[in-house]
């Protein structure tokens, strides 16, 4: 680790101000950033800790019935407190290990947009709204590729609002070593149709699988997906999975998610 200053703002306004400093970087749960710093792969001058800001933590349901989760809410808290949205609560309870779940936060995960992370699939699959210190961004617009989001420099996620689906589930096939998603499929059935989001698989990061959505909107059963497949061209190839294997798993995990949700 290189030396850095740490700021612990108490309010969002203070945090935004602190982040305007040269080479400043926000620190949420630190589950990606701290290992990166330890490897000397990042050299921020100031770390702005977001975990001391009151009001960024907690789970509530708003008047429109959306499940609203503060950005600094940990995965463990989501697992325990998001019972009205079992697909999300179950996903949160299976991220990483207990240490990760008790430090890692939803806002941190979404802002990082790791192509193998779980939460992006839930946010995109449920059609969530990402609320920041300055605006609201639809999940469909938020994820812009591996480790890339619509967030501006210094913009802080404050809350994530999830429409609660009638049925949902997440099926994850774990990369054996890291146990991140080699492929994860999140399916959510709403009265207006079905959304399917795939994480772990694509070079472009989390994506919606339109063909599956169409088929499942007609018939929300695993058999509706017979013959539906994704091309392997955009899939990630690495030690743990070829593009062809990942494309195959996309179909398998989506079917399993549907079975689990139905």
């Amino acid at each position: 680790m290189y030396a850095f200053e740490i700021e612990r703002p108490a309010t969002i306004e203070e945090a935004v101000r602190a982040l305007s400093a040269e080479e400043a970087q926000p620190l949420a749960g630190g589950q990606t950033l701290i290992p990166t710093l330890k490897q000397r792969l990042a050299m921020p001058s100031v770390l702005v800790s977001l975990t001391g800001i009151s009001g960024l933590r907690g789970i509530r349901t708003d008047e429109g019935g959306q499940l609203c989760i503060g950005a600094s809410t940990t995965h463990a808290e989501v697992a325990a407190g998001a019972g009205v949205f079992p697909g999300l609560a179950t996903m949160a309870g299976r991220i990483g290990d207990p240490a990760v779940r008790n430090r890692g936060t939803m806002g941190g995960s979404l802002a990082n947009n790791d192509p193998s992370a779980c939460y992006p699939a839930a946010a995109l699959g449920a059609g969530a709204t990402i609320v920041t210190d300055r605006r609201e961004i639809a999940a469909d617009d938020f994820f812009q590729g591996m480790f890339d989001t619509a967030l501006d420099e210094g913009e802080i996620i404050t809350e994530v609002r999830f429409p609660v689906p009638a049925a949902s589930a997440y099926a994850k096939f774990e990369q054996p070593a890291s146990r991140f998603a080699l492929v994860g499929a999140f399916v959510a059935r709403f009265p207006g149709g079905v959304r399917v989001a795939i994480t772990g698989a694509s070079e472009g990061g989390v994506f919606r699988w339109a063909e599956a959505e169409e088929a499942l909107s007609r018939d929300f059963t695993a058999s509706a997906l017979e013959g539906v497949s994704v091309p392997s061209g955009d899939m990630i190839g690495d030690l743990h999975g070829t593009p062809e294997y990942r494309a195959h798993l996309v179909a398998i995990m989506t079917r399993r998610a549907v079975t689990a949700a139905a």
Partner: protein
Amino acid sequence: MPKDNAPVHGGIGASPKRREDVRFLSGTGNYTDDINLRGQAYVHFLRSDIAHGKINGLDLSEAEQMPGVLRIFTGEDFKTAGSIPCGWQITDRFGQPMQEPRHPILCETHVRHVGDPIAAIVAETLHQARDAAEAIGLDIEELPAVIDMRAALEDGATKVHDDLASNLCFDWGFVEENRQAVDDAISSAAHVTTVELVNNRMVPNAMEPRVAIGDYNRGTGDSTLYTTSQNPHVIRLLMGAFVLNIPEHKLRVVAPDVGGGFGSKIFHYAEEAFCTFAAKALNRPVKWTCTRSEAFLSDAQGRDHVTKIELALDKDNNFTAVRTDTLANMGAYLSTFAPSIPTWLHGTLMAGNYKTPLVYLNVRAVFTNTIPVDAYRGAGRPEATYQLERVIDKAARELGVDPIALRRQNFVTEFPYQTPVAVEYDAGDFHRLADKLEAKADLEGFAARRQQSEARGKLRGLGVNCFIEACGIAPSNLVGQLGARAGLYESATVRVNATGGITVMTGSHSHGQGHETAFPQVVADMIGIDANMIEIVHGDTANTPMGMGTYGSRSIAVGGSAMVRATEKIIAKAKKIAAHIMEASDEDIELKDGKFTVAGTDKSLAWGDVTLAAYVPHNYPLDEVEPGLEETAFYDPNNFTYPAGAYACEVEVDPETGKVTIQKFTTADDFGTVVNPMIVDGQVHGGLAQGIGQALMENCIYDADGQLLSASYMDYCMPRADDMPFFVVDHSNGTPCTHNPLGVKGCGEAGTIGSPATVVNAVVDALQSAGHKVDHVDMPLTPLRVWSAMQQG
């Protein structure tokens, strides 16, 4: 000393809980990194980030001016130091010695693997040292890297060491005289089964990374090295005599609590020599603590064989010959025992449990621009077992015979048995192991379990495996003939204190094995006192007799035997003292339950009465024996020990994803006499987890440029508890070893040796059950590999 009767005093056969675990689990252990010396400085090694390059120059000028920097060392500073030595010389098929490159403490002219240390920065703090490392100007010309072993042996291949003739370390044949006879037997066989396989490279991953602290006493001129070692005396000898030219009486090596080794802490490493050297040069203690990332790049790795094995059978399915052709990766330098692993520790096991009359191995050891490879739990014996048990399993499938029946038909049944590969098995009963396995694993119930799995959409497979190991390493005169540059005896000093408590100083080293609990059980059993009256001291050359340390499942078989011999001397002397006090003759004295009695009388003396007399010799046979009660013994075994086992594994394969889960794993082991069954259970469990890790998960992968792709736990898959089934482990009623006083054989490596083939055999069985024409999948059987195999057939 096999015992059928119930254990007394926590003696042999009892399972007292591990006393050392109290400190390990309560944070009161004393690991090397817990040691901090006054005035200590820190070293950071600047390591090569390329696999092969020529060092044109290093610019230290800026780095030397950085805050806190005490001195920056490079290869230039070690011109007069010796090469990091190799402890075993192999003679090749043609009678020539192996090629042995120089292995400098810090790189001199070239970097030869990613992680090779180029410079060592000693500073007041670790962060200052790391900062300075980044300011060093490197002028290194990158050279083509040699990674693939076959490519390394091609004419014109880039040489890892340009002063050697080629990348071939040696071309070894065993038994060379059998070469033609084996060829003839194979060409005339009724059936020949062939398997080509890779024994995947492992990263050892001891829980505690390596640490070294050098210390120099200017007043006495003594050097001390604190290090994470499995054998501090060996390090003292290798480093003192061959690298730094420090006589052993001026050098102390301390290996305190050590958090696992699995072989990787046997070897003498450059960092140890560096810290010892730098402490004297700077007149300050110098500490190095390896990070996990650095361990991936600097701990000697394991396995990495590419093998073709052929098994010949006659028309009645009797094994007639085995022939193998193996490439064994040495990495960029020869680590301490590297050449012995693919040769003697591997070749002598190639008869397995079978009476195959003819065996021939050809092993070519190859230098590559990768991290050195050396012993890793099992060391050569897992490689032997894996290929043999894979080819037998494939033969059974080709011939349509039951895999257990085929093995049974070829079992060695009479002991002692002289194998065609030099070693003589002294004892064993392979049919009894197979019988136990069949019962314990409920093999009859497998068909029903397979149906249940299939009903859940899963493919179920059953794999079996029989194996034998050569442990209790080793007879010194024999290994000397085979090229070892060391003896392999073990030592113990038994010091009986005045009030009857006993301190045993042993050359064996415990780094997870539980010696501090098990060793006292043996002495307690011999004297008949409570095991808690006995304490084990190990790990410090200043207070233990010269010993060779712990590896090769040798501690209880060799170190324990030394302790028995020393205790026998203690008992003989104590009886003389007791006889004098009770005015009887020596021969009439009996020692039982810690009490000396005179046969045929009611006279008796307590253990403590005699021990006190030894140190307060008022009424004492001073004309016959010296005061005091302390004895030392060195024990040199006259054969290896031969633990054997039969394992069964049931797996489920998810046909949609290729994911393998282990449903059931059953072991039947013959360890001879078992001192502490609970500890032995634990050793088997740990070994199984490691073997299953190799079979299903772990893989050390380099890319074509020599970059380690699996360089962290994000990509190198360690087995976790939830990957394991509940093991059914049996090691009851073993056949005692015939040549050591305890009848023990050693249990530390069995699980690692016996499990990989068991797992792979089971997965192949599962795939074939669904009609896949798959007869082999290379380890690790990751979901990707199993799925890919299913796509292809």
